[in-house]
């Protein structure tokens, strides 16, 4: 990990260095991977406490490894695209309007 060098004007922060930022991101990706691995190991080796009762449709889906991760990821991506569609700031019928809209 590169060390930040001292600067004259405004001292650069640790986060100002792109290599530090990408190191942080790499750590984060590994962490995501680690959680999935832990989930898989836990599902295989131990009894997972599903919150749905056995026999419910979602019970089997819910205890699948990484179900929650995939759900979180898909929801976020879907949310961003859907809200882009709803906002449609360039079009006429979108919900996003210019700042002085109420004063007009």
């Amino acid at each position, binding site marked *: 990990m590169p060390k930040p060098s001292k600067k004259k004007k405004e001292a650069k922060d640790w986060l100002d260095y792109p290599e530090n930022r990408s190191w942080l991101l790499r750590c984060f990706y590994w962490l995501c991977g680690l959680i999935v691995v832990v989930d898989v190991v836990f599902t295989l080796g*131990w009894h997972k406490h599903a919150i749905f009762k056995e026999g419910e449709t979602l019970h089997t889906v819910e205890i699948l490894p990484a179900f929650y991760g995939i759900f*979180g990821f898909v929801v976020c991506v879907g949310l961003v695209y859907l809200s882009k569609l709803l906002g449609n*700031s360039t079009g006429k019928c979108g919900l996003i*309007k210019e*700042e002085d809209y109420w004063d007009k």
Partner: protein
Amino acid sequence: MNVLAASGLEIGFHPATALLIGGLVAAVLRGRFASMALVIAPVFGLWYIHSLELGAVSHLSLFGYDLLAVEVDKQAKFFGYLFHVAALIAGIYSFHVRDPWQLSMGLLYAASAVGVAFAGDMISLFLWWEGLAITSVFQIWGRKTKAAEESGFRYLFFHISSGLLLLCGILFRYHGEGESALAMEPLTEALEAGDVGAILILLAVGIKAAFPGLHTWLKDGYAEATHTGPVWLCAFTTKCAVCMLARLFPGAEVLIVIGAVMAVFPIFYGMMENDLRRVLCYGKINQIGFMVVGIGIGTDLAIDGAIAHAFSHVLYKGLLFMSMGAVLYRTGEVRSSHLGGLYKSMPWTAGFNILGAMAVSFPLFCGFVSKSVIITEAAQNGYMVVWLCLLFGAVGVFLQAGVKIPFFAFFGKDSGLRPKEAPVNMLLAMGVSSFICLFIGCNPEWLYSLLPHGAAGYHPYDATHVITQLQVLFFAILAFVLLRKFEKYPREVPSVVLDIDWVYRKAGQGFMLGMGWFWNGCNGLVHRLFVGGLVKKVNTFSKAGQVHVLSFLADPMHEIGLLGEGDKQKAKERMTLRARLGLHPIGLTAFVGMLFLLGFLLLA
């Protein structure tokens, strides 16, 4: 209130007394002394709530009616603790404020909330309910801008309507059932039987709980409030509504649907919104949705979860509002398009903001131990779609409050702003709030023991729960990171987002203009017809009527020889001229006068 009717007391003072006195003192004192009242009053109040015995009551005679002004039960005490802790934190946070209206009304607002929590019957509930509306608006007006003033009036419109609906509901029920309708008993059965009074009461509470369609006051008012305002506002009004829903409508199925909608729709708005305090407002509606679902499910555990979540929510949402308030105070700006990189000069505020963001959902924080009770209960009771909605809402709100806000305010693109760190009192308030968030997250049994049913049988720290929760949160962040990396995340631009308020702010305006055009048009037409037309003609007639009548009569009079021999036209002109100049012989005037009289006689 109770102090005045000392004869009817079974418990020393009303639980809100300390806050009421504090509020009055803060109104009289100035400078730091007023601020001291903000901190001291909640501490005394907290101690007093702690000393209250369960089951104690207090009666009050008002206008000849015997009111049950206070009834102490576990839920009331729980909300009593919550409101005092919230008032204390908000008091520390507002210590530097020198506007006596904001300070005193802040404490009176907290006192009204305590009054609602302890209200023993519907009439005392109504009185405190109105108190909430009036005292809270000063946190918006305190900003002293035109936008804040207008927004305050819109806010007041909603809350006064809520009070009136509550009163209507109470009166409807009183006429139907008599005295028993005033008791603070669950109305779920009445609601499901279609009782009008119960529906009106639900609507009244629904306005304060920001039910879909009735929610716009929240994002409108909070965003225009002072930098300290939302810290007060977010703690009391909506939580009073949750407290009342839990008391009056436990197990009402309609609440499950309403709550599920509340958990989902604000997420989209939160994504589009540029004003970061509005983002928090939408997150707030979403979290109240969780509580509403919990109350709708109606099992002991679900209601416990809803109440517990109200406690956690006040703490972490307050913390997030505090960090945004600090940013607004130091930079005068809270739009994400204008912020970024503030961690460089406001590291403590950034740190507390991140703690608040983690408290939304992360293990070891308060949100984790309360929200999951509701989600689990939804699943356990077989509400599959609702569970999916709640999980969606949980992920969405974390993406906004937990990722979007810290990222765009404190990190992200450097805005070049280098404001000073927040004042010490603000940091202290954020520190206290963060500590309680962590303390409850690490010791959930402490929170559970205060709940009406003790959240019996629920253990948040189950390995599966921790793993799945971490997974959902990390993958939500991952989605954000990847979308940013591939530049698919929408750019933050200065904008406003249209909500239901469009109906009354734009369509309503159009309606006003249309009505103005129509009725003013009618007015103009009538004016032209009567004032300009008929009256003018009557006026002309009364001024020159005799000339016209005589010139009209000239021909027949000439025919019968009354005007003598000579040219008919000349005789007519002579007579008209004489009439105009008033030079008639007396006999002719008398003759015409007699004709008029005869005409009147015949008509009569």
